[in-house]
């Protein structure tokens, strides 16, 4: 396994400041030397290649166009353990799924920079005749080989690599011709690692963001994206948006100006629509305050990220509703799951079918918007009152430096996320669903939500506890984790 954190020579004092050119050049040399395919990365060649691509294969341009046209694009997830399988998958998602954006999900060894294990996984996959890895070992194949994926499909491609260690995967992905990369320092470190420090996670993404800016300086606009879904487990909009703001400020600090914001669906029509609007506005508000008024921050809505039902027919409703929620909410794209979700990585067929179901749902949503609904307004305003006190406190704690503030806030529990595997997070904040299906804060931990806001959440949750006849407490949170995976007999008992 290679070192996750940058070597000492290039380790700057930790801050949100832009990494200076010379230091970054040294960092890149060190980074690219960590695995043989790093040597294949040639920035000049990569820039030329990106410039040679038509606008419809550049994710930044495609997101901007969709935003201008009021469209909601579809994007699946998808990664298999060998180049052949991955080529076939991406072609199927394009051809049979009509995906507007094609993905390459990396395998979990690659995510953890265990490239030798990934290599072994390829061999095992070839031996077994099926993928033994849960994604594509992008770094092992390297940029030259991975470019075949870009050439195979006439759509923009994005790297999906849920990791806090994106430095080499990012270099390889961009050099291969991927024009999008999902991941961020705060969001992924708190939800994808156990022992990595938040600081190192942020540093790693500062590298990636700085790399994105380097391409930008060379005239290539790439799309960076923040994964606000975190642990995917009942994340209320406010918590997702707080992390979105922090990560967006960090990215902007490195020079990123095309920064997507992902929001996991709560599966509530009003809460999701309010969240999508609030997210973009609040991120813009803080970016503008910080002097980055020129950043483009489209919102992507994600199909339900928690536990799925074990019945395909039930799951189909989540797939379709996922399209409805994204489109009605005004998201610029939706990231899809499939009816196989509760069981395992979907076959290309199941993946493509879910894309089509979602696309039809988007069509059916027409131009419907619910922004005029009083309930929508109430929720949107509520999100603002939840988010601002936390973000303001984070900025305060950093004495103006958002990177520093973030670390301190995590330590203090001011920034917190539910169900975190990371040992440095308090993970005391706990969400649950209220009687109307809204995700609310059951336990705030040490997050400084205003008192009246918390009272409101508690009142709504007490209503649910009373309805369900359970005690007001942790059980509400646990049953909310299971909820969507329950059988219909349990969810809607016969009259």
């Amino acid at each position, binding site marked *: 396994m290679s070192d996750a954190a940058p070597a000492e020579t290039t380790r700057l004092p930790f801050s949100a400041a832009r990494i200076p050119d010379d230091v970054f050049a040294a960092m890149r040399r060190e980074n690219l030397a960590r695995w043989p395919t790093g040597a294949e990365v040639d920035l000049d060649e990569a820039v030329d290649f990106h410039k040679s691509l038509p606008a419809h294969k550049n994710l930044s341009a495609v997101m901007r166009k969709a935003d201008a046209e009021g469209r909601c694009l579809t994007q699946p997830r998808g990664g298999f353990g060998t180049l052949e399988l991955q080529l076939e998958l991406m072609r199927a998602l394009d051809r049979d799924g009509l995906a507007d954006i094609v993905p390459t999900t990396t395998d*979990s060894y690659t995510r953890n920079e265990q490239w030798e294990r990934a290599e072994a996984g390829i061999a095992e996959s070839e031996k077994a005749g099926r993928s033994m890895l849960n994604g594509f070992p992008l770094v092992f194949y390297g940029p030259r080989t991975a470019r075949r994926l870009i050439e195979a499909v006439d759509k923009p491609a994005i790297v999906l690599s849920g990791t806090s260690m994106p430095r080499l995967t990012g270099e390889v992905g961009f050099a291969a011709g991927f024009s999008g990369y999902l991941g961020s320092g705060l969001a992924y470190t708190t939800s994808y690692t156990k022992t990595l420090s938040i600081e190192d996670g942020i540093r790693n993404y500062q590298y990636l963001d700085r790399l994105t800016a380097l391409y930008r300086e060379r005239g290539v606009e790439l799309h960076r994206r923040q994964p606000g879904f975190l642990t995917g487990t009942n994340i209320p909009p406010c918590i997702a948006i707080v992390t979105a703001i922090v990560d967006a400020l960090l990215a902007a600090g490195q020079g990123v100006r095309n920064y997507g914001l992902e929001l996991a669906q709560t599966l509530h029509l009003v809460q999701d629509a309010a969240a999508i609007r609030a997210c973009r506005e609040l991120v813009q508000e803080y970016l503008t305050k910080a002097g980055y008024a020129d950043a483009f921050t489209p919102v992507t809505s994600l199909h339900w990220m928690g536990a799925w039902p074990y019945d395909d027919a039930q799951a189909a409703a989540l797939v379709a509703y996922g399209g409805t929620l994204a489109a009605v909410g005004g998201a610029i794209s939706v990231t899809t799951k499939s009816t196989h979700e509760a069981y*395992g990585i979907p076959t290309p067929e199941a993946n493509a079918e879910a894309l089509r179901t979602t696309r039809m749902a988007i069509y059916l949503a027409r131009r419907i918007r619910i922004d005029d609904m009083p309930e929508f307004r109430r929720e949107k305003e509520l999100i603002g009152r939840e988010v601002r006190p936390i973000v303001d406190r984070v900025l305060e704690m950093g004495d103006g430096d958002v990177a520093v503030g973030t670390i301190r806030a995590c330590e203090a529990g001011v920034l917190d996320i539910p169900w975190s595997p990371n040992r440095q997070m308090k993970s005391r904040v706990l969400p649950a669903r209220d009687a109307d299906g809204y995700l609310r804060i059951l336990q705030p931990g040490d997050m400084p939500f205003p008192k009246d806001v918390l009272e409101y959440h508690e009142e709504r949750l007490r209503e649910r506890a009373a309805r369900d006849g359970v005690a007001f407490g942790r059980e509400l949170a646990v049953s909310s984790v299971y909820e969507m995976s329950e059988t219909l007999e349990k969810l809607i008992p016969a009259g």
Partner: protein
Amino acid sequence: MSAQATGPARGRKLITGVIGADTHIVGSRILSMALEEAGFEIVALGAITPAEDFVKAAIETAADGIMVSSLYGQGELDCRGFRDLFIEAGLEDMLIYVGGNLVVGKQDWTDVERRFLEMGFDRAFPPNTRADQVIEVLNADFAVRSAGRRIAE
């Protein structure tokens, strides 16, 4: 009220954890909470736990059983040789369960189960396993263990 540890199962010490590079902590954590409430003693290793750490923790805490979670699909690679590590450590009789989404993709369960039993796990649990079911099986298995058998029928 939910299932409870009974008979010889009461107070047994179980190690829980998510093996390999797998970060899916929710299932393991909820399982740990439920087992604790049911009367087991729990040592939770959390997410991203190397196979060796399970053995180390078992020795250090003198555990009675291991509850390996694997959700992300690569469990089939991560779990190879898991039983051997315990045999090498002189814990050949350790009760070892594995549960979650053990393989990549939606595969036939009986086939998947066979593969994991062949790897040396005492039991493998499919997706959609709830804590109550696990507790009942633990009760049964600890019961027959006092009679010298490995696991209950």
